[in-house]
């Protein structure tokens, strides 16, 4: 029991991301309200962003702004600097996430105008009665 707990504490960042991801996934699959589904999708994406960011972190690492010449001569200790690449990747992923959310919100607006509700069951009911 204690060893499992140690395991969880030692890698707590990954556990947080897994829990967040499962919450998002449940909301996307299990909820019947479209807004909740979209929120679930955002939580899901945020979990992955957090996962990437946490992989770049190092204990005692400083910001990765370096003197070019010092870096080229190999005077920089990589263990002292946080890996910037995951951050850069996630900037792009955030942009992608925002655009998907934007499109989803616009589509949702059209659904609401047409059916007057955002509950999936009610919408399907209305479509069947058409």
């Amino acid at each position, binding site marked *: 029991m204690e060893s499992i707990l140690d395991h969880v504490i030692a890698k707590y960042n990954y556990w947080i991301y897994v829990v967040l991801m499962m919450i998002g996934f449940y909301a996307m699959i299990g909820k019947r309200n479209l807004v909740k589904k979209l929120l679930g999708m955002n939580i*899901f994406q945020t979990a*992955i962003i957090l996962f990437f960011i946490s*992989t770049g972190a190092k204990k005692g690492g400083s910001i990765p702004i370096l003197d070019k010449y010092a870096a080229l001569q190999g005077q920089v200790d990589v263990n002292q600097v946080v890996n910037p690449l995951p951050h850069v990747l996630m900037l792009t992923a955030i942009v*992608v996430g925002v*655009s998907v959310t934007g*499109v*989803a919100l616009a589509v*949702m607006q059209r659904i609401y105008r047409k059916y007057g509700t955002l509950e999936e069951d009610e919408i399907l009911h209305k479509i069947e009665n058409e």
Partner: protein
Amino acid sequence: MKSNLHMYVMAAPLLTAFLVNIFGRNNRKVIAPMVLGALGLSSLLAIAVLKRTLMLGDLSYTAGAWTPPWGIELLVDPLSALMLLLIAAVSFIATFAALPCVKRDLEDRQHLFFTLYLILIAGLMGLVLTADAFNLYVMLEITSITTYGLIALGRGRAPLSSFNYIIMGSVAASFYLLGVGYLYLLTGTLNMADIARYLPALQGTAALSTALAFILIGLWIKMAFFPLHGWLPRAYTDAPDGAGVLIAPLMTKVTIYLMVRLMLTFQSPTFPLISMDVRTLVIWAAAIGIVCASSLALAQRNLKQMLTYIIIAEVGYMVGGAWLANDQGMTGTLLHIVNDALMTLCLFLAAVAIAYRTGSLHFDNLKGLYRRMPWTMAFFTIGAFAMIGVPPTCGFYSKWYLLLGGIEAGQWEFVVALIFSSLVNAVLFFRIIELAYFGSLQDSEHHAHASAEPQEAPWWILSPLALTAVLLIVVGLSTGPLVNNIIRLMIPVGF
């Protein structure tokens, strides 16, 4: 070899997308020449790229002069050049039919439609070109976001179908991104060829299996591989006609190509990516998928909906063929990607032509169509024969390779599923042909306003349909050179 040539293929639709948005806003007349001009240019350049790769080998472009493996590389080999040409040609042909449909359905939003349309095409080309795993994610999302928008422009329940697609598509993209994250942690690089170098050392680790599983499941959702296909039928049925002719032939096929390309890049004699037990599982899933999707297609009473289930069955063919992991199966898969794109294009163009004239694709409405639209139905019949796999149409040859591959690998369930699906296709299409040929207009309740006079679709839709039908036979007859000169070259030894 360093080259910029293949970048122009992608740049033409991408830049025109913005120009269409700016100039098309006030003057609708400029939209058609701009879109057709850009895609025509793309097609010509794609032919040049294919010729050059066959003569000189791979062409590579490094974005921002950051050398790979650090920078993003856009690489084109003969196979991706073939895919590039396929995308350019199919989108060029589809645009002719899209123009009149969009003009009718979305009168005052034509410039917006074609902005999305062109960005989608550029995104598909980017998917084929990129050699960087993260860049692939970005391209995947560019194509998906534009597709969500295009589908939501449709009538009826299109927004809801689009929303479901957004949810499923985002799950898929997130899975893929997570897989790439794991691979980056394991190898420290994002360049696909560079990742492949490190893989043999990581063989058998749980982290690597998880990474590959996430990537594959992500791609399988995007390509609608059974049982992850739930979003596809409604989304493709409800899409506006002008978008359907582009999305249906290309989206799933390009995603399958991505899976094949990852498999070919990662696979090496020291790293057998395709282990025996996973392979059997995937082929069983493909076989069950083919049978289920074909059976579901039988239950449909609407032509377009039936075609969407056939697309899902065809995805099963190609995924199964690739995982047979032998020469014949892989050849069949790559050939079928090309053929299926053309067959789907032909059938969707015919469906659009029928819908343009009659307004509905319900089976009851198809009665007596051979008399009213003889040419459209003649080309539809060629497309149907290709889908069934009647020689000399191209569908026969790729199915033949897939069957040979299945027999060689001893995967009999896949062989049985392929034959079953071909038989079902025959039933499906002969049912429609019977209805359209023998079904009398008198039984139809529409006989009051539906005349028996020939009433063809406009030239804008009929001529691309005719061209595609001819292409089906031409590609079928030139299977030999296509396989020997391009496809066989790309399959590594020992596959």
